[in-house]
């Protein structure tokens, strides 16, 4: 049992830790871990720290906390029901400090991941809990996650950035990561992912953050992904001068392979992508991803597998590759948005209202919903329709997406990796 009381949590600077690891030539690997039980979470953090890899810790919050329903979270704790993450606000800072005591510190920073468009309570709970690194974004933590009006999310995230920046203290630089490089997880061509990651990072720094990370979620093709991560780096370097920043790659966020071999191979591909392109941090996924919330042991195995894959991969000197035109596309989107207003938040609102940004397959009322991504016959992500975005579609005269076509596209990566694991012929006869 954890004891209540103000347990000391040592200060730590998330961005500095990642920078030191990068300087030493090591990829930082991180789980997506979160349990409602404090003891179990503490054990998970301890195992993450002890893993044979350079790691940072994660507190993934539960869905009730994400939507601000702390009463439902508290009720679940009271009756002993399992939540799908850690209810930071319902548990309160004393419990969280006890979870982190002796674990979090300069050698093991811990980040909170949540997905809230109404993050006020969560951000307010960070400081008292001994935390100052999190993830978010006015667009990416709003559109895919529900119905909060984008205008409210922009206001909420502006205040969240200001509140987070106030945690700055000697030895502590608050850190915020964009979720913009993920959005719906699948079927969004990379140019828009890169553009939104950059725009959200600009939003963060406008509102006081000095240390940020820019995300990019692994998609369907290693070459296309590598070009995207390099485009993200180029734009971040240009647009965030004097800001401490790094790139974080998310292991595939879509339908995950069901075979252990396929799941591990997809994770290795993500680690290879990160090292090849000079990304500094990787969020891993586990062999259990297709089935349920992974255990601590499965998370540790994934961290160590990712680290092994990273250490046997060499960085590839950046090349001016533009096979897919991702840099030009992302730059066109970013510039079109920034022309709309001096303030990035206002610019984002106008851009979505006019459809200059339009997230494919996103049902949010403030998204135009006219764009569509598709997979070409080589498994690369392309634009079928771009609506009012300043981007050309790759295919004229589109076929309508069917339920079966959507499933095929959504399961493309899973099928490819699982077939490779099981042997094409065995699966081939059934498909």
């Amino acid at each position, binding site marked *: 049992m954890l004891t209540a009381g103000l347990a000391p949590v040592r200060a730590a600077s998330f961005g500095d830790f990642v920078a030191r690891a990068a300087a030493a030539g090591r990829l930082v690997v991180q789980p997506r871990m979160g349990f409602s039980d404090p003891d179990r979470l503490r054990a998970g953090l301890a195992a993450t720290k002890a893993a044979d890899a350079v790691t940072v810790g994660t507190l993934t919050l539960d869905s009730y906390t994400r*939507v601000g329903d702390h009463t439902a979270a508290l009720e679940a704790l009271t009756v002993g029901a399992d*939540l799908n993450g850690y209810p930071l606000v319902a548990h309160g800072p004393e419990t969280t400090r006890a979870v982190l005591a002796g674990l979090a510190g300069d050698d093991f920073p811990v980040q909170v991941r949540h997905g809230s468009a109404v993050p006020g309570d969560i951000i307010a709970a960070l400081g008292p809990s001994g935390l100052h690194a999190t993830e978010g974004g006015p667009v990416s933590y709003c559109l*895919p996650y529900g*119905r909060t009006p984008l205008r409210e999310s922009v206001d909420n995230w502006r205040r969240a950035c200001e509140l987070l920046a106030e945690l700055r203290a000697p030895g502590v630089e608050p850190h915020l990561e964009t979720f913009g490089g993920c959005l719906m997880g699948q079927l969004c061509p990379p140019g828009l992912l890169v553009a939104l990651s950059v725009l959200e990072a600009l939003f963060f720094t406008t509102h006081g953050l000095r240390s940020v990370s820019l995300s990019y979620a692994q998609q369907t093709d290693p070459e296309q992904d590598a070009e995207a991560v390099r485009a993200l780096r180029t734009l971040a370097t240009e647009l965030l001068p004097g800001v401490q920043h790094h790139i974080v790659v998310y292991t595939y966020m879509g339908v995950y392979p069901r075979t252990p071999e396929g799941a591990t191979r997809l994770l290795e591909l993500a680690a290879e992508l990160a090292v090849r392109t000079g990304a500094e941090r990787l969020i891993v996924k586990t062999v259990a991803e297709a089935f*349920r919330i992974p255990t601590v042991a499965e998370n540790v195995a994934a961290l160590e597998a990712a680290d092994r894959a990273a250490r046997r991969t060499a960085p590839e000197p950046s090349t001016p590759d533009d096979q897919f035109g991702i840099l030009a596309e992302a730059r066109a989107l970013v510039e079109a948005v920034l022309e709309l207003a001096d303030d990035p938040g206002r610019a984002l609102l106008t851009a979505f209202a006019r459809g200059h940004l339009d997230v494919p*397959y996103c*049902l*949010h009322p403030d998204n135009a919903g006219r764009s569509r991504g598709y997979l070409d016959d080589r498994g690369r992500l392309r634009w079928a329709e771009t609506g009012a975005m300043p981007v050309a579609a790759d295919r004229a005269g589109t076929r309508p997406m069917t339920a*079966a076509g*959507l499933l095929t596209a959504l399961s493309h990566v899973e099928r490819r990796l699982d077939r490779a694991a099981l042997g094409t012929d065995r699966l081939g006869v059934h498909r």
Partner: protein
Amino acid sequence: MPQPPLPVPSALHVLVTSVQSDAHTWNLMFLQLTVEELGHRVTNLGPCVPEALLAAECVRLRPDLVVVSSVNGHGFADGLRLIAGLRSRAELAGLPVVIGGKLGVNGEEGAQERGAALVEAGFDAVFGEETVHLAGTGALPAADGSRLFRSYLAALPAGLPC
């Protein structure tokens, strides 16, 4: 080649929605396309629909069927609250409402009991990962969930006041 939806005499207006805490969208997008391809009309409320909004939309739109889909593991708990809210309103007491997806956080453990409890609470059918429960029929194997969902839709009368 995909065929455009055929207008059918018994076309239903189907409200597709998730539960209050569930942010997943792809399941809703897939359901919309599936139901549309069967010739029905869909209003898709998207993810994270508050219970009050769902009830208000049910009263306003008078759909023939509500399809609730949830995959974040909170579907059982949220589903119980949702259906209690809908059934407490006299004008929605007879509205056909079904739920499906990944309804608990522990996979198949307790799936049978969850399905039975959701039907008991007022759902007309539960299309779980492990079992399908139809009100008045009991549990069926989920292996045939997709066919059962289609035949459930086919059997629903359209345009009835609820």
